[in-house]
């Protein structure tokens, strides 16, 4: 053993994704720069861009600005052995864990629904031993995406240190060459596929998020080998050019664009619609039993063809207008 400051501590768990920056440069080197029409369907985006075994990262905040249509389609197409960044994840990781699509997960937050409590089906899935997990924090995964977006292999940080969260991660300590201080070195996280829901995108994939917070989406988008965008609204290219400072994801990151109005339901879409609390209540009640879970998934996912049919099922435009009114604080007596 060397003296204390040069001892390297290591998290004991597996690193699920590659970190070599030259390997990733080679992958990004091959990515198309063509300014081309990337508009496609949910079905095609999932069947062509997501393969069994891929590692996914989902944008938004678990039940806020989430790409629900893509998540449902992954479940419908019964993708297997997927990995996932359980970063601020709620409904997203629940769907993939409950349906048996996941076999590994970098956890910072799963199972929970914040003040609504927990999902019994997600808990069953994560306690089953069928999903290999490692633990991190929200900040850790946010910075891992940043490190990847910057083309690096790791980032030094001052979190996780001294805890079991560090021990159950794949982080290592590193000594600062300038100050001698100890940092937690977090490995860059380059997902195979990123999936993000936005307010506006053009056909090339330039994306604008009109309202609300960005969470880590700008980094996640750049870190992903392939990126699927769902958008509330497809807009003319000129509208993007008219307001370039609002563009948060450039077209060269994007592989597919799908227009999905109400695409974050039952999640909140900042500036457009609030959470569908009736749906979440029904969902969390239903998944308490295996039988109830099957019934819910049959009815709302396996039993519908696409997201339009799903929206009709949850109450259609009328329901979405009600959620819009809550979001926009429109109160009417009629």
């Amino acid at each position: 053993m060397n003296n204390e400051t040069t001892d390297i501590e290591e998290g004991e768990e597996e690193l699920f994704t590659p970190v070599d920056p030259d390997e990733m440069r080679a992958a990004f080197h091959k990515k198309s720069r063509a300014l081309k029409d990337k508009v496609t369907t949910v079905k095609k985006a999932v069947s062509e861009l997501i393969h069994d075994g891929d590692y996914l990262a989902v944008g938004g905040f678990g039940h806020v600005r989430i790409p629900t249509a893509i998540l449902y389609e992954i479940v419908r197409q019964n993708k297997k052995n997927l990995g996932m960044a359980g970063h601020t994840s709620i409904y997203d990781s629940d769907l993939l864990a409950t349906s048996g699509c996941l076999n590994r997960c970098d956890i910072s937050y799963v199972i929970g629904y914040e003040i609504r409590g927990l999902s019994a089906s997600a808990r069953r899935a994560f306690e089953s031993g069928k999903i290999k997990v490692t633990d991190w924090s929200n900040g850790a995964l946010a910075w891992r995406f940043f490190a990847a977006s910057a083309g690096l292999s790791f980032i030094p940080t001052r979190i996780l240190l001294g805890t079991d969260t560090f021990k159950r991660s794949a982080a290592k300590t590193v000594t600062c060459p300038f100050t001698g201080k100890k940092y937690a070195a977090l490995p860059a996280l380059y997902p195979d596929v990123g999936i993000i829901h936005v307010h506006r995108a053009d056909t090339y994939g330039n994306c604008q998020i009109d309202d609300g917070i960005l969470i880590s989406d700008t980094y996640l988008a750049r870190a992903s080998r392939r990126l699927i965008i769902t958008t509330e609204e497809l807009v003319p290219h000129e509208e993007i050019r008219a307001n370039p400072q609002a563009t948060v994801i450039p077209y060269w990151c994007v592989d597919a664009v799908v227009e999905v109005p109400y695409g974050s339901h039952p999640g909140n879409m900042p500036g457009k619609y609030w959470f569908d609390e009736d749906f979440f209540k029904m969902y969390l009640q239903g998944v308490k039993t295996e039988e109830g879970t099957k019934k819910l998934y049959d009815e709302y996912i396996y039993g519908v063809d696409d997201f339009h049919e799903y929206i009709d099922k949850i109450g259609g435009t009328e329901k979405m207008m009600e959620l819009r009114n809550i979001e926009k604080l429109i109160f009417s007596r009629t």
Partner: protein
Amino acid sequence: MSADYNPLELLVCVASRIIEDNSTAFVGTGVPMAATMLAQKLHCPNVTAIFEAGGVAPILPGLPISVGDSRTSHKGFMASTMNDIMETAQRGMVDYGFLGGAQIDMYGNLNSTMIGDDYRKPKVRFPGSGGANDIGSLCWRTVVITPMDTRRFVEKVDFVTTPGYLTGKGAREKAGLPLGSGPYKVITNLAILGYDEETCRMRIESVNPGVTIEDVHKNCGFELLEAPQIEKTHEPTEEELRILREEVDPDGYIIRR
């Protein structure tokens, strides 16, 4: 004075009082949100509420359901990124951080990850750190809000999700955590607890109305130290309760759970 309040209302009122004006506070889901909103409407008009996912200083039109929902940036100063917020805390600009957990030990280490002794076969799996490890690592003063009983206040937590003082004085710094950061108070239904400066062990600082020092010891699974002078916690005032019930949480999401 009003005797008519429930334990959650007491927690929210007590937590709101320890926030100082012109400070920055990291707020999580539930009681901390209500406490910060209450403080803002009473003695802290200029406390800046920071939400870990990017929302800064919203004028909350209602209680957020999530630390990442649209309310957390409603008419705020900024709708930013989680990376920016965590970096702000890492460079030392966030004063308070509020946390909870399933278990806490005498050094304020918190578990929100799992119960059991086998990581791969947990008896119970919880959500995990979320932003808790970041907040507990990077804020100047961490405040834990939790009900108190021997199941939660334990000799040894099953998993250290979030660092308190780790194994005692100097352990945080040795681990590489920022100098001078760490646990500040633990607010419970029975007492307000703080930390002894010499040992970094948890101690009783104030007991809540109708509670004896003995009750506090009995509901703790480890040996609690006592401050040289133990205060009595003030009951919620009528004004606190009125604002809490009518303006902060009229739907009872938090205080009537």
